[in-house]
């Protein structure tokens, strides 16, 4: 089966993904060699967010439908993998009342990840059947409903998910090197999807639904495909989160994380993979700076006041300014390879 309609699409996708991978790997390597130990953790968290943003981009960027349920799918990925991989003796302690024998088995990390991807992907497919039938705001509402429902289940089936308490004892499987490799793989997947025949048709339908319909685009099927693929990437991000942190709870998979990652995608420009990557990098570094200011530091002998909430204000301001000034984000439709290969004059 043909994935790309033209070899030009393939070349763009390939070189674009390669260049982004290079940047991503470079940042990772710089931190590995020059960073302090705690930087590794900050950067790992940033890579997890990058995966989330890419997963979000695959659906939002190609369909222009706002998704607010992404953190829920990340959470599902994290929990399912965690339940499978955590050793039995720890589960006896942490999940004494787990139903269906969940605390009586343990699997290796790879099988756990595969099970998590399969189940989350299946759930994404099922919810996708509903989402793709709705348009615009209606679809967004249902994504909010999904977020609330999943969070509610995490919170109240404490026998399985522990709610706000810690689900602990997940073995540490990944390190920074692993997530760099995974990030690169996902960049390729997302970029290839964008330039693939499905991606091009989907983007056409996001520009003009009626016209795409009249041009033979099966919008339902393609949206469902993008939604499910996005769900799989989000599940992967959750697995990466759990496999490094060792302890998870329902708390991180809710509105504040939704807005953080959404701001990352919007800032860079949701229609482009380059935008997704740039947005993640800018917000990650920017927030570190803002957080430093928040606590009232002394800079050049000058004592700044404590300004709690500054990071939230900054995040909100990023969203508003981008929406008002530059709807397509910083880069719009631009992809990184266009700096080098002059295939298009200006997009």
């Amino acid at each position, binding site marked *: 089966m043909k994935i790309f309609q033209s070899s030009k699409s393939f070349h763009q996708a390939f070189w674009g993904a390669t260049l982004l991978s290079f940047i991503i790997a470079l940042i990772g390597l710089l931190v590995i060699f020059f960073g302090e130990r705690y930087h590794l953790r900050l950067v790992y968290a940033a890579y997890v967010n990058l995966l989330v943003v890419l997963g979000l981009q695959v659906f939002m960027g190609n369909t222009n439908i706002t998704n607010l349920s992404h953190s829920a799918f990340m959470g599902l990925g994290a929990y399912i993998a965690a339940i499978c991989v955590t050793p039995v003796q720890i589960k006896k302690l942490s999940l004494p009342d787990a139903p269906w024998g969940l605390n009586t088995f343990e699997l290796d990390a790879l099988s756990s990840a595969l099970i998590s991807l399969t189940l989350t992907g299946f759930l994404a497919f099922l919810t996708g059947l509903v989402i793709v039938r709705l348009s615009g705001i209606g679809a967004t509402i249902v994504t909010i409903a999904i977020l609330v429902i999943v969070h509610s289940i995490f919170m109240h089936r404490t026998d399985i998910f522990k709610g706000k308490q810690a689900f602990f004892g997940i073995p540490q499987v990944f390190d920074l090197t692993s997530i760099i490799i995974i990030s690169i793989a996902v960049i390729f997947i997302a970029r290839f999807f964008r330039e693939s025949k499905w991606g091009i048709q989907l983007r056409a339908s996001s*520009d003009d639904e009626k016209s*795409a319909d009249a041009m033979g685009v*099966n919008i339902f099927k393609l949206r469902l495909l993008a939604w499910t693929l996005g769900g799989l990437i989000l599940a992967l991000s959750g697995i990466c989160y759990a496999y490094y942190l060792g302890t998870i709870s329902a708390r991180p998979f809710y509105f504040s994380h939704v807005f953080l990652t959404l701001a990352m995608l919007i800032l860079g420009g949701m229609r482009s993979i380059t935008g997704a990557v740039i947005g993640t990098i800018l917000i990650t570094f920017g927030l570190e700076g803002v957080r430093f200011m928040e606590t009232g530091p002394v800079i050049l002998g000058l004592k700044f006041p404590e300004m709690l909430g500054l990071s939230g204000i900054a995040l909100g301001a990023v969203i508003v300014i981008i929406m008002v000034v530059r709807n397509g984000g910083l880069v719009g439709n631009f992809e990184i390879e266009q700096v080098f290969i002059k295939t298009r004059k200006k997009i």
Partner: protein
Amino acid sequence: MKLDCISKNFGGVKAVSQVSLEIGEGDVLGLIGPNGAGKSTLINLITGLLTPDVGKIFLSNLDITSQKPYQRARLGLARTFQNLRIYPNLSVGQNIEVASISSNYSSRTMNFDLDKIINIFDLEDKIDLASEELSYGHLRRLEIVRALALNPLVLLLDEPAAGMNENETKELSNSLKWVQNNIACAIIVIDHDLKFIMGVCDKITVMNMGEVIASGKPNEISNNKRVKEAYIGH
């Protein structure tokens, strides 16, 4: 393609009433009529954006009345839009690709060279531009090329010459002639520019108030009394 007595009402108003048409490969049918005559509605009914209240639509003897627009497009019904509907965030080339991807889902083989058409319609050197950068005339052409990329059996052009100057209209006529001679498909053209229609069509159907009031060769139509009445008023 055949339309069998199709009708559509909007809140009691008869937009299209008992229209039957038949058109075959190589035909160029002009569809004219005053504003509100139901021409665009008819096109929307044919392509599936609207469903008829009564009547059936056949394409190559296949009943497609209940097919969705994208299915009809894959079966070979291609169209352009009265108001331009180009994908602004895709390049010119990608705009065309959207349709040629769909044509891959069809079992019909492409009997013409798409690159040749791109050349004929003067888009070759603009293929990598953002579609927003094209001039109005080129956007109109892009819509036609995009529709042709579907490898159509029937090509429906909804006011292709609207907003064009005399020169551009002339070029468009020539391009359509080329299409007629080189691509095995039927063409239906809607336009207000009677000179343009008379020039490209070998058959014309006139609609008024949702009904077909006349049908025939261009010279027959221009002498038809009912047509004159419809245009000038009683």
